[in-house]
């Protein structure tokens, strides 16, 4: 009898069958925890994990713990697909989370649709499918948003420029960044600015100076970049090395809060949808404390996206109740309003048709040499999502 039980247990383990009924909310995440792009995604996943651990430590949701299963896809689509399959069939995840490159979206979306399990994008760029009219299964909390970000950045440039704006652009040679900078270039013309140059820079570049030389020689008094942090900051530094003294605005990636004090440049602006830690909100203190307690190797300033993702998961599960299956969680997410405690300018509100958010808010920051700290130069400016 004992032998039979033992054999059964071993077989069940080998086949990945759950030995007992789930007594926790199972959330499956696949993310770029290793590999070159992991610098962007791993800190966000860490923030999300720490948030969920904290929820579990305080009794879970609806009296049940959240079982967060993390799978590394190394930003590879094939691995993301295999991870998703495993999370759905073996782990019985009721909610999937993607924290990886956009190239992993398609296989994950396909698996999610097959199994009808909702999918949350929690640190990669939001896909078009979450914008109205949204795909019923896909949701997104990530801060950056194509088209709106450039509108907000160029509005800031226009409001702060003294005189005519001659604007240069810098993108990384990846579809997302190029598309957004092409859009910004068109937009700048409609806003009365003169686009003077656009540099699309390949990711493995030994020296950014040749690109910056061309950009500088075009004579811009503003430069806008919407690209991975490395392209933004290295283009800016190359421009400064060439003696260019005008202003640049770039997207406030996770790295910006640690990078602004390194650059110490009063004319390098970052625009973003997340409140930086210099705002010193109570929720920032919570993140710092939790990161310290978890002995994280990532700075807390890089965890905001993950923290917001964790908040969204908790809110969705709370609304779905217990026991919750994928359908109930999806229904709960469709009408969710998430108060981010000031991390964002307004609540993240999802509707049946809009799984992105109904409003977007942007703040702008820069380094202030006189104060020797990061300062906010524009408070939340809101845009309606149509």
């Amino acid at each position: 009898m004992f032998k039979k039980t033992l054999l059964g247990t071993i077989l069940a383990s080998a086949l990945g069958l759950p030995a007992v009924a789930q007594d926790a909310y199972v959330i499956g995440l696949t993310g770029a925890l290793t590999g070159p792009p992991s610098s962007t995604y791993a800190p966000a996943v860490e923030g999300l994990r720490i948030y969920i651990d904290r929820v579990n430590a305080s009794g879970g949701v609806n009296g049940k713990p959240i079982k967060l299963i993390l799978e590394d896809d190394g930003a590879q689509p094939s691995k993301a697909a295999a991870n998703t399959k495993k999370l759905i069939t073996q782990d019985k995840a009721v909610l999937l989370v993607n924290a990886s490159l956009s190239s992993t979206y398609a296989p994950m979306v396909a698996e999610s649709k097959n199994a009808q399990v909702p999918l949350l994008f929690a640190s990669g760029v939001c896909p078009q499918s979450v914008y109205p009219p949204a795909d019923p299964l896909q949701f997104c909390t990530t801060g950056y948003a194509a088209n709106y970000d450039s509108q907000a950045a160029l509005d800031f440039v226009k409001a702060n420029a003294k005189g005519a704006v001659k604007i240069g652009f810098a993108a990384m040679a990846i579809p997302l960044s190029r598309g957004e900078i092409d859009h910004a270039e068109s937009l700048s013309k409609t806003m009365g600015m003169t686009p003077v140059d656009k540099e699309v820079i390949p990711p493995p570049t030994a020296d950014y100076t040749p690109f910056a030389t061309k950009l500088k020689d075009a004579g811009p008094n503003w430069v806008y970049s919407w690209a991975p942090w490395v392209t933004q900051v290295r283009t800016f530094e190359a421009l400064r090395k060439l003696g260019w003294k005008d202003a640049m605005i770039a997207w406030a990636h996770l790295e910006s809060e640690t990078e602004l004090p390194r650059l110490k440049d009063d004319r390098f602006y970052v625009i973003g949808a997340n409140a930086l830690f210099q705002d010193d909100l109570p929720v920032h203190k919570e993140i710092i404390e939790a990161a310290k307690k978890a002995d994280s190797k990532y700075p807390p300033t890089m965890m905001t996206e993950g923290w917001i993702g964790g908040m969204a998961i908790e809110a969705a599960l709370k609304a779905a109740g217990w026991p919750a299956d994928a359908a109930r969680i999806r229904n709960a997410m469709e009408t969710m309003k998430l108060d981010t405690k000031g991390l964002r300018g307004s609540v993240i509100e999802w509707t049946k048709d809009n799984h992105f958010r109904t409003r977007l808010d942007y703040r702008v920051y820069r380094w202030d040499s006189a104060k020797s700290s990061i300062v906010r130069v524009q408070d939340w400016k809101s845009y309606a999502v149509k």
Partner: protein
Amino acid sequence: MQLVVNILVLASIYALIACGYVLIYRVSRVLNLAHGELMMLGAYLVLATASLFDQHPALALAAAVFLSLVSGGLVYVFLMRKMTGEMVLAAILTTVALGIFIKGMVVLIWSAQQQYPAQALGVSNPSLSIGVASISLWSAALVGVTASTYASLFVFLRFGRWGMRMRAAGQNPLLAAQRGINLHGIYALAWCLSTLTGACAGILMALDSGFTVNMPVIGLKAFPAALVGGLDSLGGALLGALIVASAEVLLIYYVDPLLSDVVPFLVLIAMLIVRPWGLFGTREELDRV
């Protein structure tokens, strides 16, 4: 003028990396496809030594350079030595595996975040003026290091006892061994010097503008420079680097910045069609490959 400076800096980067490929190939006929990763390892070693020798940037840099030299030797002793007598392809595949191992290891130790060794060392990178052109301090240092590396290697290989042995081992290993030359010692020395030059390139690039785990891709972009010049010729590597860098910088400025990614390989294809053994390469050697 600025374009000339840009070409000079980029050519120096490629030349310093390319000479590492040439040193190993010339002596052992092995293509080291982990050269980019070893270059990156040098930059990471600066991060390690910066924390060890706090407030002593010169000491930290010297320690990182020395450790790079040692790591080249260790790679030979513990890995490539076992490949002696095996097919060249096996040795090349071993270097591919080594590259993957190094890349994985550095992510585990230091994470994949953008790193700034200059900040860790507490050194600045001011812009220097040369007439109407500008160059950063560490870029200028890179140009200087490349020039002195090539000059030193020329003297070493031409007049040095071990340099002559290296040339002899490269030309005819069997005869060299029969004359009492310690081939393993020569190969180990080539790996040490190759890793040292690659690491110097990695360290100086990282000091100039930081680096990420994507740095080895730059190592691959320098490979065409070595091939264009002739894979067994240091002078060829220098000229190849200058050709590739000139094409890259001028096309970025006058045509399309996106071409920078493909230019080195376009130049390489053109060279392979016209003169497959490179500008200064030895025809017989390449026929054998």
